[in-house]
């Protein structure tokens, strides 16, 4: 379980791990919990995962990036309860050339979003809750929540 944690994470910590005397450029990406989503006011959220598979999938993504570009990659995703402003995911990539570091960093976050079995439950200011479905984002979300999406239930 190298890529998942219930503790706070920081891109700078990962960046220090990838930095080496050979590296000219380091890129990081930090995904932060926003206070809004599709016009709704978010108060906190909860990430859960199919943990062994999620960790293995993260390892595969890191390995793909490191074989496709001459870079060193670190990736951490947080699980559990997160508040606004908390870091959900952090990626650091070091390479001799900046173009490769940017491309590899972008690749890793896109693949994480596509492939890693992690789910997000959002808690809204109106005391409702919903599982986030990125495939339905921005497409008539309220209607979707009432029909195809998992039911919106009152928080305890």
């Amino acid at each position: 379980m190298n890529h998942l944690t219930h503790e706070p994470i920081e891109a700078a910590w990962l960046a220090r791990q990838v930095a080496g005397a050979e590296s000219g450029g380091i890129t990081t990406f930090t995904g932060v919990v926003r206070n809004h989503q599709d016009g709704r006011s978010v108060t906190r959220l909860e990430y859960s995962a199919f943990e062994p598979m999620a960790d293995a999938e993260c390892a595969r993504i890191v390995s793909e990036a490191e074989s496709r570009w001459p870079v060193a990659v670190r990736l951490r995703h947080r699980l559990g309860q997160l508040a606004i402003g908390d870091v959900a995911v952090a990626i650091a990539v070091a390479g001799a050339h900046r173009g490769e570091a940017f491309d590899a960093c972008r690749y890793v976050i896109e693949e994480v979003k596509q492939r890693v079995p992690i789910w997000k439950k959002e808690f809204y200011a109106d005391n409702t809750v919903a599982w986030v479905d990125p495939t339905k984002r921005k497409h008539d979300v309220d209607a979707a929540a009432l029909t195809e999406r998992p039911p919106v239930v009152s928080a305890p």
Partner: protein
Amino acid sequence: MSSAPPPLRIRVLLFASYADLVSREEVEVLVPSPATVADVIARLRADVPGAHRLPDRPLAAVNQVHGRLTDPVADRDEVALLPPMAGG
């Protein structure tokens, strides 16, 4: 006459909204051999209370690797049904 092969015993894992819909995180399903991931899902939706609310073509992983609905399953395989992923 040869006897029919024994059924395949498949462990199905449900997560997040799918676990909520079925009110379970794990179900054992028996399917006649040979079978695909799609066969496992069809049996689950038919037999398990609430499981008809699952989509009939969800994303699935077999033994912790992303798979296709047409992939074959073997006895004791673990099939995970994955709601739309939302990491990152």
